[in-house]
């Protein structure tokens, strides 16, 4: 359903992505793992042109975009089919939780106000914020803000939700709450691509795991085979520290 072909991206002389291919099927939960600087966040951002790739193709359902030729219209169209959850929440600071969720419905997708409000409330209820509709981001804790971020993503019924390290900015106590929400979305069949450092979560929830290093995909496979029998030396090396501390991963 979502396919990336030969994505290249360089920042100046620093080549961050060196030709990445990725295929995501409907209902997949793809976890992208890898050390810092491996290009995983950049890859995620190129999908919706938050970072414009230098070269490559992005296919989402019937939309087939050559990165170099994509027009502003194409890009907006692509963005309306996707949703993005940011590491630092990225909530609109001048809008309440409810308005944050409604914005993409009323303004971007021309959904009538009443219906938009209903859908936005449903989304907020789902992430457990039914008592925080009228709170501004500054009045919410980090965990609550990220819940609004997720509500904003699911409210628009996207074909795929992209998560960029959704728990990295949260203190450990709040991480599990966010991961539980993502887990329940996975159970409902949402298609998601998650850049994460949470190994246990990736093993538990992801259907497909991608390991990146140095701007390329080093290894990928189903969650089970990936964690039990990593093939590449680099992957084994990366996981060794998790395997030694968390016995159950083996």
């Amino acid at each position, binding site marked *: 359903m979502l396919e990336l072909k030969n994505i290249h991206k360089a920042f100046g002389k620093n080549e961050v992505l060196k030709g990445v291919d990725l295929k995501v099927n409907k209902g997949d939960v793809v976890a992208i793992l890898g050390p810092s600087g491996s290009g995983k966040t950049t890859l995620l951002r190129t999908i*919706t042109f*938050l970072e414009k790739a230098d070269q490559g193709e992005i296919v989402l359902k019937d939309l087939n975009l050559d990165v170099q030729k994509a027009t*502003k219209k194409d890009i*907006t169209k692509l*963005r*309306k089919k*996707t*949703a*993005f959850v*940011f590491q*630092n929440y*990225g*909530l*609109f*600071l*001048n*809008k*309440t939780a409810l308005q944050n969720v409604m*914005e*993409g419905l009323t*303004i*971007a*997708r021309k959904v009538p106000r009443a219906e938009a409000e209903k859908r936005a409330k449903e989304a907020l209820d789902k992430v457990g914020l039914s008592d925080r509709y009228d*709170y*501004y*981001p*500054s*009045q919410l804790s980090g965990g609550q803000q990220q819940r609004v971020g997720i509500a*904003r993503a699911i409210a*628009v019924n996207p074909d795929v939700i992209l998560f960029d390290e959704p728990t990295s900015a949260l203190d450990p106590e709040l991480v599990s709450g966010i991961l539980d929400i993502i887990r329940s979305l996975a159970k409902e069949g949402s298609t998601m691509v998650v850049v994460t450092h949470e190994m246990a979560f990736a093993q538990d929830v992801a259907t497909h795991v991608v390991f990146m290093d140095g701007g390329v995909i080093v290894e990928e496979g189903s969650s089970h085979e990936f964690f039990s029998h990593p093939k590449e030396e680099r992957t084994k090396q990366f996981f060794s520290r998790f395997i030694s501390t968390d016995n159950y991963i083996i």
Partner: protein
Amino acid sequence: MRLNTEFMKETFWLALEGVPITLKITIIALFISIILGFILALVEIHRVRVATPIITAYVSLIRGTPQVLQILIVYSLIPSLLNAIVQKMEINFSVWDIEPIVYAYIVFTINTTALLTETFRSALLSIDKLQMEAALSVGLTPFWANVRIIFPQAFEAALPNICTTTVNLIKGTSLAFMMSVKEVTAIAKTQASYGYNFIESYLDIFVIYLILCLLVQGIFAIIEKQAQAHRKIVRSV
């Protein structure tokens, strides 16, 4: 030293009659400058090929010269220039009939626009890049992302500086007497010159300007409070 209180009272009321002119110059200059300054700030930020360097130069020029000089130059240069043009093109129009206040509008607008361009530029740059990315990600076009998310936040960030600029503008209009505009200072000076009661006159308008500026600050405090509704901290029980 004795103050002529009778004269003070009289002049105070007379000078008050200049307040509408002072406010007229302030409001017109401010209104145009806010719109123009915002547009220029946008152009400056988006690095438009020819326009941006021109704006940068304009802002530096205005900020780098005394306002008194700007007034003197505009007031002596523009009429002569216009007159030359009018005569050359043989248009039947008397440049010397233009009301002096028009030049006041021009000078203060040119000046305030430069200041507000800087204000808006810094305000726009102060908005976290993530706000734009999030807006685009929910499917807004860049236009709507700006209108709905970026501009309101930038405007709010700019409010304290707009207030400062407005207060400075009001005080600056006191120089309009140099263009023989009959605003507060001009009236006070004229009254004083009859009997050399300058101290009394100046004390009068000292109070008038103080009141005007306090009022403006009060108004802006209210606007800021409205605009910053989202910053108030609700204590959850």
